[in-house]
């Protein structure tokens, strides 16, 4: 019984595994002064660099990988959290890819973090 509980705990811990990272690039001069951070939920998502014709300043790259099954939203939500913490208010060129998860199918989401002008 103890072993079953331990195995279940490990399974639950690993099943929810996700990791994120970001990379600041030298595309632009860093924004002066304090950057107003937006809520992850308010980070806009665009699949192309065109971003519906909106103008923006590139901040860097963001990546998230999550045990998400077929639910891209799980990985993209993590990506939005990372982008928001990075000072971005939008991500462009979102690309989804299959990845290996611990116990479930993994989804890797990558994008360019930007600040809208």
């Amino acid at each position, binding site marked *: 019984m103890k072993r079953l509980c331990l195995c279940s705990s490990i399974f639950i811990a690993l099943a929810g595994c996700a990791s994120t990272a970001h990379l600041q690039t030298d595309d632009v001069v860093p924004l002066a002064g304090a950057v107003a951070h937006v809520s992850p939920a308010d980070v806009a998502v665009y*699949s192309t660099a065109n971003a519906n014709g909106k103008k923006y300043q590139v901040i860097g790259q963001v990546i998230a990988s999550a045990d*998400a099954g077929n639910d891209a939203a799980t990985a993209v939500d993590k990506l939005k959290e990372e982008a928001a913490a990075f000072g971005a208010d939008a991500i462009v060129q979102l690309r989804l*890819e299959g990845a290996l998860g611990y116990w479930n199918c993994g*989804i890797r989401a990558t994008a360019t973090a930007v600040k809208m002008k």
Partner: protein
Amino acid sequence: MKKIVTILPILALLSAGCAIQTHYFQNGANTTLTPVLASAVKIYSSQTPTDSGAQVLGSVAVDVVGDGATALQSLQEEAGAMGANAVYEVKLTKINTYAQRTGISGVAVRNSVLSVLPDTAKSHFNPKPVTARAGRNN
């Protein structure tokens, strides 16, 4: 020890054998478009067009056990279900597992103008579609 030897390959196979079909609608995308038949979804390596006739819906990705043709069919099904009739900026991916997996990702687009033009006329607007079936994948 016997249990571990039994369980590990099962876990490895479970992990290696799963198939992914997923998409994410971008901000402002029309999420209520009529689905398109998988066979009618065109695949392009080129950049997503920015003209008003091309409506960007979002990002789409698949990763399946099989070759490029299997992945292509899966991508067309997923994009078609979104209401897209084209996928641009496609990229192939591979993951080394016990099962041979192939993935394709790209940008799902609803082309309003091109969808009603004959194939001969379409070539004036866009490059030739990718012939993913021709590649060796395994």
